[in-house]
């Protein structure tokens, strides 16, 4: 038999990596510590350390390369739109945000969208309200594996604002990288402010 979906998942993530790599030729900029950065939808955050910033359909920060760790700032997501684009998958097949969604629904949408990206056994936990700028947003953790079987962890913070969704997602291998960067990323998330 043929595991076509597995191949598709590889291709999706490979295409994403290629896209980021291509983007890195022209659009990688240095984010300096201690200077506020606009990440979209009128939001600024304060980096505690230097990051490499890659701008594609959203802003992505990485310390060691996007294949190793990523802080994704998905902002201004409107009703009917997916949380993020997935190479080779039509938007309507990904699942879309709806302003009527509750935090549990949005958590489910993140899990399903990551599943469509090709990640395996995406499991959420610790859904809790948390401050997001001047609003109350919500946070949750993730565990999952890449299609290569690498065990990953994730940290998410999100808020609904005027019928749009802002979602920050940090992901890194559970071994070393997540624990090394999570405290710093947590401070970045906590620093979110509306302009």
């Amino acid at each position, binding site marked *: *038999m043929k595991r076509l979906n597995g191949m598709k998942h590889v291709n999706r993530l490979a295409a994403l990596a290629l896209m980021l790599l291509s983007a890195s030729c022209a659009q990688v900029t240095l984010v300096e510590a201690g200077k506020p950065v606009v990440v979209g939808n009128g939001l600024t955050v304060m980096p505690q350390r230097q990051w490499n910033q890659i701008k594609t359909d959203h802003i992505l920060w990485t310390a060691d390369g996007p294949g190793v760790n990523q802080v994704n700032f998905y902002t201004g997501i409107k009703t009917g739109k997916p949380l993020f684009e997935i190479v080779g998958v039509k938007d309507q097949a990904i699942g879309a945000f709806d302003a009527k969604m509750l935090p*549990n629904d949005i958590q489910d949408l993140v899990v*399903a969208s990551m*599943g469509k990206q090709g990640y395996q*056994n995406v*499991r959420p936990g610790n859904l809790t309200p948390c401050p997001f700028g001047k609003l109350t947003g919500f946070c949750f953790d993730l565990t999952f594996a890449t299609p290569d*079987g690498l065990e990953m962890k994730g940290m998410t913070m999100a808020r609904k604002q005027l019928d749009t969704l802002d979602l920050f997602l940090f992901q890194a291998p559970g071994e070393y990288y997540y624990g090394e960067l999570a405290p710093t990323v947590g401070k970045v998330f906590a620093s979110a402010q509306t302009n």
Partner: protein
Amino acid sequence: MKRPLAAITGLSLLFSSALANAADYAVPPPGYTPDMSSDEAGLWMQVDKAEAAIKVSPALVRDEALNKYVRDLVCKLAAEHCGSIRVYVMEVPGFNAYMMPNGAMVVWSGLLLRMENESQLALVLGHELTHYKHRHSLDQFRRVVNTSGAMMFVSFATAAAGVGLLGSLAQLAAVGGLLAHSRDQERDADVGGFEVLAANGYDPSQAPAIWRYASEESNANPNHSKALFFATHPAPEERMTSMTKRAEELQSTRNDWTVNADAYHAATDPFLKRWSEGELARGEPDESVILFRRLAAGAPSRGIFQYFLAESYRKRNAQNDLAAAQVSYRGALACADAPAEAWRGLGLVAMKSGDNAAAKDAFIRYRDAAPDAGDKAMIDFYLTQL
């Protein structure tokens, strides 16, 4: 137990047209290893790397009891080939199982979630054992190399090497893709699987159901490709028809057919919640609705299937889905094994429907039933909003 040998022999003759298309390789004798100078040895070397990666994969299910159950069943079906087969149960939610030419058999948890009894599982395992015994991978490998040249072998070797380095399910997919069986081989494996099923006294009438399951799930989702097990296989409808015919022919040859549902459920029940969560995480609620509707209908006293059916409806959120979810959550809560999360689901649906009193009641019940739940703070927050 008397085996319906005449019927099975007749069955083989009946399907000789399918067998005529299969490769003419000798069944490997028990304990077979290929000659080191052969291309088959090269093929085995590459899949050995893939197998080594599976052994250290985080997705490998290491539960002793479940492994023993599946391994014992494979051994029973494989008979004299038992010692040549190694079984790996992987926690991957797709509807799939596959066989490597070196005797490594991989069974995905998504397959185990979908089967309703041992008879159904035996058919799939028998199908995979036929791929091994008829050496379909070697045949396909030689066809690929002959038609595509040495570069394809390099691609295959590279993919398999990646498996060795990373334990990659994705790279395994690449290996599987390059060694995908032909439709004739799949038909041959269908015949072989059916023979194994019947020879071991498993109810043949269970066989067509598997293809119906695949067809129903696949047809429910316009965005999704076929379930993995069926990607290169003959259409489920074709198999359903041929299996039904074969089952009807065999049914009257004995009256002690077994399905062994109890043994199957005893082995798989401890994992149903986790595997069902994995199914929902695939993000294909159209298919999940079909799957859990079937499982719930087949086991009306099992609250867990009602719960996951409700979750599928809630996540899909199409027209009337919230109402359907509410019915299923309530159905789950009427069962002894209802997960506490059914109260949470009921609360979420009520909150979205604007029924604040019902939402408040359900959330309080959830909090009482699961005081240490990871989302307790979120539920408390919802309660302040009602």
